[in-house]
């Protein structure tokens, strides 16, 4: 479904050039859920943004559903295959667009017909009642906003969802609801996920395999069982796992 080979992403020009991602390679099979973990600044979100076409200063090879991507141009077929959900549902929804406006605009851009019926179905899919259709973001809680953002991503009927810290701005009880929703949607629609998170427990819950990033490079790719058992091959991964277990008094 997704192949990333020797991906480099940089910002700025020499001498101030910053290499945010260096020689990253990984594959994600159809229907798989793949996690990217690491500390802030490790480049995990940057990889997602390069795939989504939000950054064009990259080199290497990205293939989605067998088709290589161009750094600068993405066609409609790409956005029908790949959609993204962002970290902060308070920032990713237009404050003066109602839920109905957000979803109908997206559906129209995707060239969908029967928009009225589709909006009702999308809201059902993400567990929001019809009553939410004409609300504005400020009338929604954080969890409800994230549901709208997920509905917007699903509007294109994509096969690959890029999830950038989808629950880190939410309370733990709401996080549980959103993670359950994402699991259900993946089972129902046969979606492929690439999920970025700093929370190893969340990635452990959601993903089959994961890549650990440090300073722009992937230091290790492992499956979730290895993560659970703490049998990482790299020191850095072991440190990360130990730190995520919580605080041990010095």
């Amino acid at each position, binding site marked *: 479904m997704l192949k990333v080979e020797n991906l480099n992403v940089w910002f700025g020009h020499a001498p101030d050039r910053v290499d945010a991602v260096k020689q990253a390679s990984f594959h994600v099979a159809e229907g798989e859920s793949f996690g990217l973990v690491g500390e802030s600044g490790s480049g995990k979100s940057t990889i997602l943004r390069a795939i989504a076409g939000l950054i064009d200063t990259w080199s290497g090879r990205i293939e989605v559903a067998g088709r290589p991507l161009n750094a600068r141009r993405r066609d409609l077929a790409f956005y029908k295959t790949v959609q993204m959900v962002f970290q902060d549902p308070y920032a990713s929804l237009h404050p003066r667009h109602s839920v109905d406006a957000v979803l109908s605009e997206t559906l129209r851009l995707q060239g969908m017909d029967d928009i009225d019926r589709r909006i009702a179905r999308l809201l059902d899919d993400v567990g929001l009642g019809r009553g939410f259709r004409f609300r504005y973001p400020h009338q929604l809680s954080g969890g409800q906003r994230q549901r709208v953002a997920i509905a917007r991503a699903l509007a294109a009927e994509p096969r690959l969802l890029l999830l950038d810290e989808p629950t880190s701005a939410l*309370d*733990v009880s709401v996080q*549980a609801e959103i993670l359950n929703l994402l699991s259900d949607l993946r089972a129902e629609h046969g979606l492929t996920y690439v999920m970025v998170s700093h929370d190893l*427990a969340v990635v452990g819950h959601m993903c089959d395999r994961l890549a650990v990033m440090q300073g722009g490079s992937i230091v290790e790719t492992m499956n979730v069982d290895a*993560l659970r058992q703490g049998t990482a091959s790299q020191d850095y991964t072991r440190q990360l796992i130990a730190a*995520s277990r919580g605080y041990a008094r010095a």
Partner: protein
Amino acid sequence: MTLLSVRNLRVTFPTRQGEFQAVRGVSFDLGRERLGVVGESGSGKSMTGRAILGLVRPPGRVFADRLDLDGQSILNLPERRMRKIRGNRISMVMQDPKFSLNPVMTIGDQIVEAYRLHAGGARAAARQKALDMLAAVQIRDPERVMGAYPHEVSGGMGQRIMIAMMLAPDPEILIADEPTSALDVSVRTEVLNIMDRLVRDRGMGLIFISHDLNLVAQFCDRVLIMYAGRIVETLAARDLHSARHPYTQGLLNSLPRLDAPQARLPVLERQESWRDGDTIAESLETEFPGGL
């Protein structure tokens, strides 16, 4: 003797729909200990911290039967007297250093200014104190950091600088509002170690406000769990995993765990009765009045 004694603290804001009660009758004592305050967004945990410091702005109003610092009431003091307490005797560390440091002032100037405001004294002495404080929070190159601007330091370093600034006047109580939520796990441990040492070595009282139950269970001595502006349960931190209140249990269960995989996460079913039910509490008094 308890450092801080709070009884029936209430914070209200007028709204078009009538009075909104953000904090509804919170009572607790703080000794020289690490007291965790846990709850979801909107539970009133941050507002409790702000009310203690007199930082609730009008039209918000603060009421309490008692709000005593070392036996003296600090409830609704005039701003001029509150300013002597704030920073000097009770300090606060906020969540995100990016929004709490002045972006156009060097870090050294900010710490020196904060220190001289409270302690007075010569500029040179304050500068030395600032260097000492930066060293105390494990900043390796304090001379360089003194001359740096906030955007030139990392998030973890920014948070340590905030702590250094708050600790320069030697407060008796530190209120830390989500001090590590914006930090990576590896940096988090360092920041927690620093606060831990301050409680043990200086006998400071720490109010640690957080949404992270596991962290609080491991770091604090005692925990208050807040829901809808009230404390629903208080218990020793080591007993958090045997909490009795269904809300506390629900929060704990909704966390994904690396060591116990499950297909679906249990979802919290909120009960109307939690809003006004009884508090499950051993006692309001602290077990650690004289230090750990």
